[in-house]
């Protein structure tokens, strides 16, 4: 086994003058040093726009750009050699926030300019609605850059052997990796084998390539497998991020609390490369009015290149940002109207058959109202005044907040979106379910096995799963967009039902057309006699016959003439969060004391899986609300480890209560929908709304860390330092 290491310049904007690899190559134990000239095919990648170089040839666009790769016999030697690579460069002016990026005379991150996308959606007459409104709230919100902080840093192995490149790197979509690697390596699909199993967390951060491209180019050069594992610092410097955004909203409501208009401006920092920057902005625009019916909208957004770390997909993809802004707006509107915040949400919540603010009709089930109604019944909301009254110290104040959200399920209009599954009776008599979309920790493998076993009436123990392997499993699309339970689950259902028919046909071949078949725990019964899967497999083996089935499912589309590619979505998940915080008015520290999550699962397939998602989503939303922020200076990340990039620890975890509601989706597998993202975004505004409830300060710039809270408290009370 050889070890790889990447050499970088360490600045965010520069022009490379010369790369000298001699000293590194001369080091004993160094097998190869690769640069841009060693890339056999396209020196570029990206899910949509291939604007990121595998190895930088001339320009450095962000701190994490790879310039060279070293392959050596040990990790220590690879690291030493990487330091010996001399990169001569000249720093060039860069842009480090959206204000700098959008200037006419701004330095260009890419030759095409700094605007990746300018998106506009307008309906109705917002100005007219503002004029006749009972209340109008206009505010500006700032959202930080968030790190996925998955437990497993990017790592894996690549090997080039007998003309075939095998890449074993945790990712969310092996076929998408394969497609990009084929171009980079100038190889056919048959020559590139990608396996993504297991995956140590992803949250969107492994949707695009991480280290695969560099690793594969290194592996081409040596005779043997090459392994590379990013340190946490390398991970934070190079990995994809959640888009930092500035969102301004002007929102109006009438005297009854009906939201009549929303004017929204979004500035999104996509960093050095496109990633899914257009799509994330699209989601932010589509979800700008949150879970509500709004007839008059004027929404406009820019996705801008900067020399910051590139942003791409992250759980609640563009929705976390919009939801925070809109759920703050609704809270302020309710406050101005003297209206109960839950009632305000019930008044405006989208229902099936409504026309969405984007303009299309919502044909599928909508869970907003049921989750809100459930929230009204839970102890934390119902008895909030009682719970708030028992703060632990006189200077600590408690508050309870609520927020709701909808989250698109599926890739969106015009984008390929399908699920696929194979179900095979193996020679050993096992049921083997093959799906191409990796389980990234959320438990979809278990859900697929349960669905198939349920339909076959067999013990779960008979059902194996193989996943995410371009050779052994069917392409089932990406593990993202809250899509796999619904879309791939439907394919699993189709495969299992076909498999049952196949099994019946096989039995009829053996025992006649008129037999009576039952599907039982260990196999089938034929006219009352049990034939185990082992027995059936042996029989099939003797006859040289296979028993298998394939399921394929295409996601429905909105069928709406959209101004923005990939939009709109037609299916949505929903969740409502209720949070109780305790604010220390002396220090500004906030503790999340209790948290309630009410997701609409359609149908709960696995309650532990739902709870796990709800708890994880709450924590991610809590981190975003209270502490997470990638801190950088001119594109140089200062918070490059988990001692400076803070995420909640086990000690910060509150009691999370999960109460799923089931607004059955008739087209879903067993009625189920995805909840992976829906459980995340509303956690943030629920906490921020709870802080307001506790101490009457409204935090519009995240994170609401102790300093932000204390500064707001001092401002509000006009307190000087003499408190």
């Amino acid at each position, binding site marked *: 086994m050889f070890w790889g290491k990447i050499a970088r310049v360490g600045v965010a904007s520069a022009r490379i003058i010369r790369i000298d690899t001699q000293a590194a190559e001369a080091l004993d134990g160094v097998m190869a040093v690769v640069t841009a000239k060693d890339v056999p095919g396209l020196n570029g990648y990206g899910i949509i726009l291939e604007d990121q170089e595998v190895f930088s040839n001339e320009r450095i666009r962000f701190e994490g750009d790879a310039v060279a790769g070293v392959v050596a016999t040990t990790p*220590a030697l690879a690291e030493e050699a990487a330091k010996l690579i001399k990169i001569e460069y000249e720093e060039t002016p860069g842009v480090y926030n959206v204000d700098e990026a959008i200037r006419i005379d701004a330095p260009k991150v890419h030759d095409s300019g700094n605007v990746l996308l300018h998106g506009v959606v307008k309906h109705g007459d917002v100005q007219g609605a503002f004029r006749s409104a009972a209340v109008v709230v206009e505010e500006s919100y700032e959202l930080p850059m968030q790190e996925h902080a998955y437990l497993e840093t990017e790592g894996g192995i690549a090997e080039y052997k007998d003309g075939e490149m095998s890449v074993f790197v945790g990712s969310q979509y092996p076929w998408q990796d394969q497609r990009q690697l084929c171009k980079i390596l100038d190889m056919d699909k048959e020559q590139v084998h990608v396996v993504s199993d297991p995956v140590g967390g992803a949250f969107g951060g492994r949707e695009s390539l991480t280290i695969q491209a560099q690793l594969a180019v290194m592996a081409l050069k040596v005779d043997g497998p090459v392994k590379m594992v990013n340190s946490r610092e390398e991970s934070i410097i190079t990995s994809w991020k959640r888009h930092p955004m500035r969102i301004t909203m002007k929102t109006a409501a009438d005297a009854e609390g009906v939201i009549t208009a929303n004017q929204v401006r979004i500035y999104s920092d996509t960093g050095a490369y496109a990633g899914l920057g257009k799509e994330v902005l699209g989601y932010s625009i589509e979800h700008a009015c949150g879970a509500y019916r709004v007839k008059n909208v004027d929404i406009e957004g820019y996705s801008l290149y900067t020399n910051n770390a590139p942003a791409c997909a992250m759980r609640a993809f563009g929705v976390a940002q919009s939801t925070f802004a809109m759920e703050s707006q609704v809270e302020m509107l309710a406050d101005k109207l003297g209206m109960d915040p839950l009632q305000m949400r019930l008044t405006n919540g989208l229902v099936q058959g409504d026309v969405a603010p984007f303009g299309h009709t919502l044909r599928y089930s909508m869970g907003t109202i049921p989750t809100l109604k459930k929230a009204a019944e839970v102890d934390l909301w119902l008895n909030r005044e009682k719970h708030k009254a028992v703060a632990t110290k006189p*200077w600590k104040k408690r508050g309870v907040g609520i927020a709701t959200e909808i989250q698109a399920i599926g890739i969106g209009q015009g984008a390929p979106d399908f699920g696929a599954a194979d179900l095979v009776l193996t020679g050993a008599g096992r049921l083997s379910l093959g799906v191409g979309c990796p389980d990234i920790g959320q438990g979809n493998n278990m859900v697929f096995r349960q669905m198939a076993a349920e339909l076959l009436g067999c013990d779960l123990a008979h059902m194996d799963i193989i996943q995410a392997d371009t050779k052994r499993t069917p392409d089932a699309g990406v593990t993202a967009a809250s899509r796999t339970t619904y879309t791939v689950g439907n394919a699993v259902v189709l495969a299992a039902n076909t498999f049952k028919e196949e099994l019946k046909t096989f039995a009829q071949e053996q025992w006649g057309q008129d037999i009576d078949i039952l599907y039982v725990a260990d196999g089938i019964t034929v006219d009352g006699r049990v034939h185990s899967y082992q027995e059936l497999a042996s029989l099939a083996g003797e006859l040289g016959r296979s028993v298998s089935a394939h399921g394929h499912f295409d996601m429905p589309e909105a069928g709406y003439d959209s101004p923005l590619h990939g939009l709109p979505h037609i299916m949505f998940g929903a969740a409502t969060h209720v949070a109780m915080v305790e604010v220390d008015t*002396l*220090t*500004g*520290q906030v*503790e999340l004391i209790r948290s309630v999550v009410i997701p609409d699962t359609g149908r709960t397939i696995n309650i532990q899986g739902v709870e796990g998602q709800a708890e994880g989503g709450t924590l991610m939303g809590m981190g975003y609300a209270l*502490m997470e922020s990638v*801190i950088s200076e001119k594109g140089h990340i*200062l*918070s490059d480890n988990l*001692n*400076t990039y*803070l995420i*909640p*620890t*086990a*000690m*910060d975890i509150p009691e999370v209560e999960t109460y799923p509601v089931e607004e059955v989706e008739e087209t879903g597998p067993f009625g189920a929908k995805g909840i992976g993202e829906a459980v995340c975004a509303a956690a943030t505004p629920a906490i921020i709304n709870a802080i307001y409830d506790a101490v009457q300060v409204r935090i519009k710039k995240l994170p609401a*860390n*102790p*300093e932000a809270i*204390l*500064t707001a408290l*001092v401002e509000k009370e006009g307190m000087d*330092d*003499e*408190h």
Partner: protein
Amino acid sequence: MSISIVRVSKAAEIGILLERHRGAAKVLAGGTDVLVQIRNGNISPSILLDISQVGELRSVEFNLNEVSIGAGVSLSELVESEEIKSEFPSIWAAAKEVGSEQIRNLATIGGNLANGSPAADLTPPLVSLDAELSLLGPEGSRRIAVVDLVVGPGQTRLGPSEIIHSVHIPRQCERQGDVFIKVGKRKALAISVANVSASVCLSEDRQKFESVQLAFGSVGPKVVRAFVCEEALRGRSIDNRSIELALKQLDKEISPIDDIRATARYRRIVCKRIAKQAVQQAVQLVQERS
């Protein structure tokens, strides 16, 4: 590239070995700072002297005039000690606030001090309690005050072959009370944004401050005593007014900076607030003790 680990069994050997391998050897107690520094390339010792098994560095003795804690006593051991908790609640609280359970199981009181961090949680309580250190080197031992150990960030008065042997804290009488408060950005694994330790001694009638000692962490290059505030409290009645009045002087005594964790402004505001809280709580503690 490689590091030899030498396990030492007697305290007296440590100084000799450090002397013999000057510049090459570094002491390894819990390793929670040293290993991080090695990984980050801040230090590159070729020998690590593992002192974790030296028995005499691991004892806690309650003597008539002072409590002596071996430098190798882990923070978990301090947290688990009922005696420490009841006599020196500030030390107990500070130990409990360091890192995480796993870190506290390894980290030692000596290491927390010797690392010389201005954010070290154990330093403020020990400074406010007038604790002293026994330092041990090849030429024998000497005693210095804890407050004199650290010169600046990461820099101490330890000689090149000297180690901290033990920490000595004067016994507390029932008129004394001490409280530690830390402000971190989360509930575990949080480096202090600011912290304070207050040690008060009340008059016989419990109505006045006989003396107050205030030590602040993370608000300057090293832990600082607030002598002016302390002086302003001496002989004053124990009401909030005197505390607030005294703390008006605090700004002149601390010199916080802006860093990745917080701004200087926040640290100034919060220090005043937690100091007031710490003094009030210390007074309360004495009242409860009587």
